[in-house]
């Protein structure tokens, strides 16, 4: 099974071919299409699970399998820059290869597992009366997306990642604009595409710089080269990692490129759940974690990542507090949680970032699908103030939504609590941690609890504010939509127990931790940060890098990277002495209690404002109307971008148009009119001179021939007379001897 892991991205492609090319015309069954797409995701999940288990049987340092299917880009010589040899040539060859290691195996399980549930949900969600003709298109895109996302996480080089990176961007664009007859949906798709292009340009530059620096785009080669040739803080590495991070801000909706994600909610809700919450937007996090060897070499980039992550988390959480559209709240919540993940990466706790990525995939997919369930039951209503007391009609949605809310709010025992707590702990104590980052993170935890509880309570509790007509049709959705919710709700509860914080490893939890721990699992890839705290980690890493023996060079002149197992490159965990551990435990408990208290306070506050005293919300809104307006208008970032970039681009367009209209058209028209004048002159010359010469010759001959013509009378007898005269003359000459 483990050798077949390269099949995983290809499995959904089968669905793309069948559903995309044949299903609508030749089969015409929505059930067939939906279940084919879902079934293929399940098959991919099983292959992925088999690969995961196969990987788990191997010793940790061997958990790295590569398979190269063929040479994708076998190009010629290219220039590269090596640290000591200057610019020299390297062969630019990119194989189409896949790589399975703990990180990609985990990502595969998340993508295919959550993806399968969302596919099943979508079968129910996308069924309409009358049938939506785009149903087949929808599932084609969904499978295509899954395929690209799997290529993204399974590729063995940055070029492979780029295929997936661009592919998921394309599918995202197609699915955001799924309802393409709606202008706002089309605009949102374009916005997402353009914002992603900005990030992708940086990604491309980063790839170029990486190849120029290391002579390869293969992960192993790049990481080995980085570890071998570069010191911590090398400017080149900082540049590359920063460029990559800009790419990540596009894909993962971080400051400054986050503006597309809220608008992406124009897409169907399963798309929001799968692409814009659970999987695609985490590609940036995956990429940073994948490149952790490079990032660890650049403290400056790490600081940037952590600060951007924290700032994005805070900004998005504050906006989410006042939005009324439930999907927008979830969208900003997603941005905020992605900020958390980058915060974790930025402080050096890469594995924790992935941990939160996973739990977030569970509860955010759950929340989106539950919100979609509400929306589906209420005729597409999205404004939470037109809901209220929905729990009466939708008991399953209500309960699963509650689980999701509690999970994201960080209530102890649920998935979000474990991952968020780990992030906050490393924000304080991680290699690049800082109390300020922790404080922001904790504040965001409180805000998150508040806005999620607000949405949950306003939607499901209190007085019903529904349109009576809508209310009369309100109903719980069919099992096809509720079962995925239940499964995800279970995962949202249990998902956290794969990463138990150090201070909680007591009793049965310790057993659980010893059986499987996500941080330990990810250690070969994501480094040992998660296993230990303390600022001395980075130094230890550096020594580790320095200790790596020089990699053999082959005759072309760059490192033969395949021989270096990344486990050697990756950072070994640093042992902690017992005393240190004691201190940390006390601190960890303190921080954990504070964050739980903040979260509970946020939830309590939401309860007091929105249920306990319904008028208080209005009062508060009026008192802080300026702040409310600022938040409600999303800090006017869209308007700022309009003013700074979009209108400037339009101005440029108008300017270019004027240039086109004035100068280019002028030149063209001028050329045309001078050509016409030249043609007129030419005609004149032709008529006067050339024709004159021809006619002149004709006329001359004509008039000159007049005299001669008279000789040809046409009368036979004239000719006969001339013959006779001639004969007489000749005879006379003969006889009379003239």
């Amino acid at each position, binding site marked *: 099974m483990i050798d077949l892991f390269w099949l995983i991205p290809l499995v959904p492609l089968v669905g793309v071919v069948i559903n995309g090319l044949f299903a609508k015309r030749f089969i015409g069954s929505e059930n067939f299409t939906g279940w084919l797409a879902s079934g293929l995701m399940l098959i991919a999940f099983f292959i992925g699970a088999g690969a995961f288990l196969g990987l788990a049987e191997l010793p940790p340092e061997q958990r790295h399998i590569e398979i190269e299917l063929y040479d994708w880009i076998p190009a010629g010589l290219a220039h590269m820059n090596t640290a000591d040899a200057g610019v020299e040539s390297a062969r630019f060859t990119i194989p189409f290869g896949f790589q399975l290691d703990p990180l990609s195996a985990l990502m595969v399980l998340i993508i295919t597992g959550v993806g399968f549930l969302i596919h099943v949900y979508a079968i129910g969600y996308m069924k309409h009366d009358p049938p939506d003709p785009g149903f087949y298109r929808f599932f084609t895109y969904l499978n295509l997306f899954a395929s690209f996302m799997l290529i993204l996480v399974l590729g063995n080089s940055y070029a492979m990642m780029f295929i997936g990176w661009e592919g998921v961007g394309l599918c995202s664009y197609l699915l955001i604009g799924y309802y393409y007859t709606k202008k706002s949906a089309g605009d949102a798709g374009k916005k997402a595409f353009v914002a992603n292009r900005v990030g992708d340009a940086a990604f491309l530059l980063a790839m170029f710089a990486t190849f120029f620096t290391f002579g390869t785009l293969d992960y192993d080669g790049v990481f080995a080269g980085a570890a071998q040739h570069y010191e911590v803080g090398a400017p080149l590495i900082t540049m590359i990692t920063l460029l990559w991070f800009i790419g990540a801000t596009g894909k993962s909706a971080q400051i400054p490129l986050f503006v597309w994600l809220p608008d992406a909610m124009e897409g169907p809700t399963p798309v929001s759940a799968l692409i814009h919450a659970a999987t695609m937007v985490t590609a940036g996090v995956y990429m940073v974690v994948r490149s952790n060897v490079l990032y660890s070499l650049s403290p400056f980039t790490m600081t940037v990542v952590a600060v951007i992550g924290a700032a994005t988390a805070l900004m998005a959480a504050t906006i989410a507090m006042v939005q009324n559209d439930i999907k927008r709240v979830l969208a900003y919540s997603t941005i905020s949680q992605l900020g958390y993940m980058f915060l974790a990466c930025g402080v050096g706790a890469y594995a924790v970032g992935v941990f939160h990525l996973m739990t977030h995939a569970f509860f955010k997919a759950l929340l989106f699908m539950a919100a979609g369930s509400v929306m589906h039951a209420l005729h597409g209503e999205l404004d939470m103030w037109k809901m209220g007391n929905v729990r009466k009609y939708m008991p399953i949605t209500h309960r699963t939504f509650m689980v999701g809310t509690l999970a994201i709010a960080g209530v102890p025992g649920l998935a979000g609590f474990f991952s968020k707590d780990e992030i906050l702990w490393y924000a304080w104590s991680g290699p690049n941690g800082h109390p300020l980052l922790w404080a922001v993170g904790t504040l965001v935890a409180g805000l998150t609890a508040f806005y999620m509880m607000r949405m949950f309570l306003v939607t499901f509790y209190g007085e019903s504010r529904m349109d009576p007509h809508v209310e009369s049709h309100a109903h719980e959705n069919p099992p096809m939509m509720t079962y995925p919710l239940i499964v995800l709700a279970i995962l949202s509860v249990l998902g956290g127990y794969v990463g138990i914080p150090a201070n909680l490893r007591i009793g049965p939890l310790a057993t659980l931790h010893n059986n499987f721990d996500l941080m330990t699992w990810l250690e070969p890839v994501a480094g040992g940060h998660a296993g230990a705290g303390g600022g001395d980690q980075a130094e230890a890493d550096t020594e580790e890098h320095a200790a790596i023996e020089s990699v053999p060079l082959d005759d072309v002149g760059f490192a033969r990277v395949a021989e270096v197992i990344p486990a050697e490159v990756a950072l070994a965990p640093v042992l902690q002495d017992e005393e240190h551990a004691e201190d940390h435990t006390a601190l960890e408990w303190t921080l954990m209690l504070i964050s739980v208290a903040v979260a509970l306070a946020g939830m309590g506050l939401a309860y007091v404002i929105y249920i306990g005293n319904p008028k208080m919300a209005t009062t508060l809104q009026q008192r802080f109307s300026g702040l409310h307006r600022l938040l409600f208008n999303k800090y006017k970032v869209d308007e700022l971008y309009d003013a700074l970039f979009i209108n400037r681009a339009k101005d440029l367009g108008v300017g270019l148009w004027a240039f086109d209209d004035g100068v280019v058209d002028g030149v063209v028209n001028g050329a045309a009119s001078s050509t016409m004048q030249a043609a007129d002159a030419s005609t004149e010359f032709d008529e006067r001179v050339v024709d004159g010469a021809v006619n002149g010759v004709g006329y001359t001959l004509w008039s000159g021939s007049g005299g001669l013509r008279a000789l040809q009378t046409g009368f036979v007898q004239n000719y006969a007379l001339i013959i*006779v005269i001639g004969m007489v003359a000749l005879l006379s000459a003969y006889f009379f001897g003239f």
Partner: protein
Amino acid sequence: MGTLGLEHYLLLSALLFGIGVIGVLVRRNVIMVLMCLELIFNAANINLVAVSRFRPDLAGQIFTIFTITVAAAEAAIGLGLVIALYRHVQTVNVDEIHVLRG
């Protein structure tokens, strides 16, 4: 008057030739022109026969028989052309047939 000598025949022949030439030049009817042409032919024939008679040589007379035969064929062709011409221009007047005028 003595016996007829060669000069009488030649005189007759010249007279016939003259009448034929005058006729070719002045007659307006194509038929008449053709007939005058026949006179010119026959003037030549008389010459041949007369010279043959006054010299002990029959070749001239035999030649004349051939010439008459050829003249008959020529007359047939000439009349055929006249008929074709008449069908074309509805006239046999040479004054009116001048399409070759320059």
